[in-house]
Structure formats: C-alpha cells, structure tokens
C-alpha cells in the first residue's frame, strides 16, 4: 500500500527516511525529494481550486508528507492505508500542500505567511493527510515563485527555523488525517508560534521542529484543547474550528496528542509517540479506512457536516492517551449537559457537585411524573361530566389555535382523531395564513404563540361562543386563564343540571 501511494506521486517511499528525531536528516530527505516531483499541473504548487487537482495534489502531498514524516514504518503504513482509503479525497493533503508551500517559500519569510493565508479553509479530507485546501495559496505567490523555491529547498530549509517546526508538525500530521485540525484557521500567523506551543501534542522531537509546528498548529487550534477523535459520533466538543473534515483518523488524533505531549515532555514524547502510534495503529487501523471512505464523501461539504468528528486537544501536562482523552471529552460533555439541566431544575443552583445535582434532577423528574399522575386522577374524576364540554371547546380550540410548531406531527393527529374530529383536524392541518374569523380574534390576539393561522371556519357555527367573547376578551394572554376561559366556554354551554351533577361528584 505504501508503494501504491507513492506510485502516484513518484516520491520515494518513506522508508528511506529516518525517524523524526533527526530533523536535519528529514529536511535533507525532503529537500532531496523536492526536485523530484514532476512539475505537472496537478502538483500542489499549482494554485488551483479545482477539486480534482487538489486531490491529486493532495495525493502528491500525501506521499510527500509521508516521506517527510520521518515516522516509523507502522505509521507510514498507516499513511498509505489511510491515503489509499481516502484516495484523492477532496482536497486532502492540505497540510501537505501547505507544508510544501511553506517549504517552497522558505527563502521568503514574508511570503510564507501568505502561503498559509492563502490556504485557508481546509475542508475535511478523507485521506490521511490534512484537510483539503479549499482555497489555493494566494496568487501573489505565483507558481513560478514557488517553483523556484522548490528547486532550492535545502538551503532554505535549513535556514528557516519555522520550517523545521512545520515539517515536524506535518510529519505528525502526515501519519494521520488532519481531520479538522487544519480547518479554517489555517492562515498561519507565524507570530502565533509560541503561544500554542504548550498546547501541542506530541510532535517530532527536536525543538526546531517544535518551533515549526506551533505556527501551524496555532491557527488550527486556536487556543483550544484539541485532539482528533476518530469516532464517527461527536464524542467531545467541537472546538472553534468548524470541524468539517470527515476523516480524522484516530492515529492522527494521536499525533495531535503526541504533539502536545511533546511540548511538555521534550524528548520523551518521541518515544511515547512511537509506542503510542503503534498502539493506535493497531486499534484504529482497520477503522481508519472505513472512516476515510466515509469521510471522502464529506470532503466537499462545507464545514460541520452532520457526521462530525469532535476534535479535542489534550491539555498541557495531561495524559494524552486516547482513552483518557476520550474520557475527558466525555466528562466535559456530561458536565456541560449538567449545567443545562441545572438551569431547568429549580433550586439546583445552590447544589454543587454532580452527585447531588443528579439526585436533584432525578427527584424533579419523579415529582413531575407524580404530578402528572395526580392531575390525571383529578381529571378523571372531573372529566366524565366535563369532557363533553371539552369536545366543543376542543373543536373551537382546534380550529383557532394553529399549530405554531413545526414539530406537530399530523400523522399523530390524524391517527388519534375519530371521524368526527377528522374534519376539524383537516381544517386544523391546513395551515393557511388566512385571516381568522373575528370571533377568533379575541382568542387569537391574546395568544402570543400563534404564528400560523388555520381558518376558523367551523367557528362560526358555534353560536354559543359569541356569549363568551366578552369573557374571553378579558384575558390578555393565552395562559392558564385563557385555557380556563376556553374550558369555561364549554362549561357554560351546558345547562345547570350538569353542573349540579358535577358538584355532587366533586
């Protein structure tokens, strides 16, 4: 599969390259590689917004990146696996393109930022590398310029301190899909370098690489915790970046974690990375391709397609194990929802701690259910005499009160209705924006929630309702009072004997 990958790009297989610890060697290799690639139009250097070209470029970048990534072989196999699976998944290898762009512009420090700026919103990519570049590098960096730079990479590479960082970052990225990491924030400010360095997960070991990495990482992960999760369902919270990429391979997330780890732990991280990568590869390798394929479909989508990956970043100094990260994400999710519940449940503000709050919530739900039961008991005792009123009231209510909620399921309505009600329901379901009958205006005006109106055609045939318009007009709001008035309308319709009967019963 590795060979497959490189057949497209004609880059030498990555196995030649040494592990990331030797950044200079990596750069050298990359530099060597650089003149090799064909300068066909499909190459990434071309600023083309064409999706296919991008894909091709991505594939090229994939190979470039994989070669660049002086990662151990298992990760390389993952690249090929992921890339193979992702294929030219729309705009994949954005990072790679970026990297190459950067590398090409090594000599021009001022323009290096532009390159990144140009390659802004990286949409999701299915392949292992990066996200697709939605916008080409700025035209100011002309092809020729980049081409030119390309040819003399080595000296520039070594000269650019940022390059090492970028290369390192890309090396880490290269092994996995960038899924969302390189989202819209790709316009890299080289200035941002230092701030996020602490947040970077595992990264190639050398400090130079770190410097390279942080600018790339900074925009992509603005200040956030951010790691890539491979689960199809959003497991953690998506960060500021609209995570459009559909293909975060878990291994990639691990690289993100690894980077961060590295920033905190220096050389240790490289070893961890190696070990962890292998572990992750074992775990996620089979899943990677599937998701790559699935993600391919999402490449062209705008950011945040429904099937989103939540990218979480490991915090500095915290474990970057995939499980612990998932755990943390999950805990955060739960905590956030607890806050939501806290607002709902009255009196929960004073309670601190998850356990107590959950107890409160459970008590509240139980109390609500008990209330429903109690009220239903009350209604049953009342209803047998009053339900008749309800029918009339229902009819008028039915007609007058339109479904302002689009969630109203008409099928449910219809299934419940008898033939008698069916007509009303049909009327009800016809949400015409026609004027309501003036009799209805009394009821309608108080009802703030009325948005759509269904014609109260049948309203006019209820002569008794005219009596109640006066009483109804008192009510300013469709609230409890209104409801009572509606009910009262039905009540008043009946002769007295029923009320006496009612009294007896109550």
């Amino acid at each position: 599969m590795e060979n497959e990958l490189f057949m497209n790009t004609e880059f030498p297989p990555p196995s030649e390259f040494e592990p990331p610890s030797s950044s200079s060697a990596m750069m050298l290799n990359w530099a060597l590689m650089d003149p090799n690639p064909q300068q066909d139009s499909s190459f990434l250097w071309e600023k083309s917004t064409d999706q296919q070209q991008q894909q091709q470029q991505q594939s090229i970048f994939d190979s470039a990146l994989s070669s660049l990534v002086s990662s151990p072989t298992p990760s390389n196999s993952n690249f090929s696996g992921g890339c193979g699976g992702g294929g030219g998944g729309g705009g994949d290898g954005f990072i790679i393109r970026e990297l190459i762009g950067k590398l090409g512009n090594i000599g021009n420090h001022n323009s290096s930022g532009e390159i990144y700026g140009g390659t802004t919103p990286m949409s999701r990519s299915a392949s292992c590398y990066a996200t697709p570049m939605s916008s080409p590098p700025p035209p100011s960096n002309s092809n020729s310029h980049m081409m030119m730079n390309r040819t003399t990479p080595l000296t520039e590479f070594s000269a650019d301190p940022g390059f090492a960082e970028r290369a390192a970052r890309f090396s880490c990225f290269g092994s996995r899909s960038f899924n969302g990491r390189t989202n819209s924030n790709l316009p890299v400010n080289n200035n941002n370098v230092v701030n996020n360095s602490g947040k970077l997960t595992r990264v190639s070991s050398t400090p130079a690489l770190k410097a390279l990495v942080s600018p790339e990482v900074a925009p992509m992960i603005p200040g956030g915790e951010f790691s890539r999760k491979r689960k199809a369902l959003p497991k953690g919270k998506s960060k500021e970046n609209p995570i459009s990429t559909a293909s975060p391979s878990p291994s990639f997330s691990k690289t993100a974690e690894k980077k961060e780890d590295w920033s905190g732990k220096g050389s240790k991280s490289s070893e961890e990375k190696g070990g962890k990568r292998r572990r992750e590869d074992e775990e996620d390798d089979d899943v990677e391709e599937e998701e790559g394929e699935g993600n391919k479909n999402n490449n062209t989508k705008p950011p945040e397609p429904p099937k989103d990956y939540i990218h979480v970043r490991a915090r500095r100094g915290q474990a970057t194990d995939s499980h612990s990260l998932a755990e943390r994400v999950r805990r955060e999710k739960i905590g956030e929802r607890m806050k939501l519940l806290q607002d709902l449940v009255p009196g929960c503000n004073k309670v601190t701690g998850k356990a107590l709050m959950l107890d409160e919530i459970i008590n509240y739900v139980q109390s609500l259910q008990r209330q429903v039961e109690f009220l239903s008991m009350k209604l049953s005792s009342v209803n047998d005499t009053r339900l008749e009123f309800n029918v009339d009231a229902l009819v008028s209510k039915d007609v007058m009160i339109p479904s302002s909620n689009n969630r109203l399921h008409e099928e449910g309505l219809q299934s419940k209705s008898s033939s008698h009600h069916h007509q009303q329901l049909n009327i009800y379901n016809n949400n015409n924006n026609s004027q309501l009958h003036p009799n209805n205006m009394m009821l309608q005006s108080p009802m703030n929630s009325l948005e759509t109106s269904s014609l109260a055609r049948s309203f006019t045939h209820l002569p008794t309702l005219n009596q109640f318009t006066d009483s109804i007009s008192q009510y300013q709001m469709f609230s409890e009072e209104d409801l009572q008035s509606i009910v009262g309308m039905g009540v008043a319709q009946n002769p007295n004997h029923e009320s006496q009967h009612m009294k007896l019963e109550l």
Partner: protein
Amino acid sequence: MASADKTINTDVPEKDVFAIHFLQSLSNLRIQNLFNSPDTTNYRVRKIKKAAYVSMARAAGGTSRLWSRALLRRAAKGNNKIVRFPRRKRKVTWKISSKRRRSDQRAPVVEDAAERLRNLVPGGGGMETSKLMEETAHYIKCLSMQVKVMQCLVDGLSPK
C-alpha cells in the same frame, strides 16, 4: 463551552400545542365511553395518564426525540387502536451493551445516577449518559409543560 450549547437543542413547543394534543386525546377517550361507571376509576385514571403521556410525546415532536419515540412505542405496543405508531422498516440497533459496559467504568457516581435516570426517562436504556442528559432536559421541559396544561384544565373544569 458556551458554544456547545448551541448544538444541544432542547426547544419545546408552546403550551397550546400541548394543550391541543391533550384535549384531543381526552376527547378521544370520551368517545370511547369509558367514564360511565365509577368502578373503573383506576382504569380511567390510567387511561388518562397514558393519554397525557402520549399527547405530550406527540406535542413534543413525535418521533424526533428518543424519549418520545420510546414512549410512543411503548404505548403503541399496548393498544394499537388508540395510538398508531409508524413502523420503522429498519430496526436501529444500538450497541447498548457495549456502551453501558464502558460507561460503567467511568465516574461511577455519575453512572449510578444515570442508571436511575434511565429508569425514569422513557427510552433511556439505550442511551449513553451524555445523550441521556440531553433527553432528560427535553423531557423535563415537556413534562413541566404538560403539567401546566393539565393544571389549567383541572382548574378550569373544577367547579367555580
């Protein structure tokens, strides 16, 4: 953290939607002539309670919510005449067991409470804790709305 709230949608429709649904269900019940004999008080109560829940589930969005879906399914199982539940052609199977097994290891305090919550919220058995809490929030909102409607009704129907 605040931005994530936007993704959690716990809107419930207005009170009138609940009211309409509930009144319709009540009128349906009335048509069945259940309220004639005092012996069947319990039966009546149960019927009304079930009607209340079903109407609440419908008002809250039918099958768009997990809990409402579970509620309706539960009701449809019992009595197909009253509640018609659209059959799903493809049964959605969740890896409940795997999820639950996994979640048991996490924050046992939370998980114990979540277990109790699962018993309360319809359809909670198949949800993970975070999803469960989302559903609980929506469920609480709908329940409180339903309680308000029923309270109004009772107040309106009680002798003045």
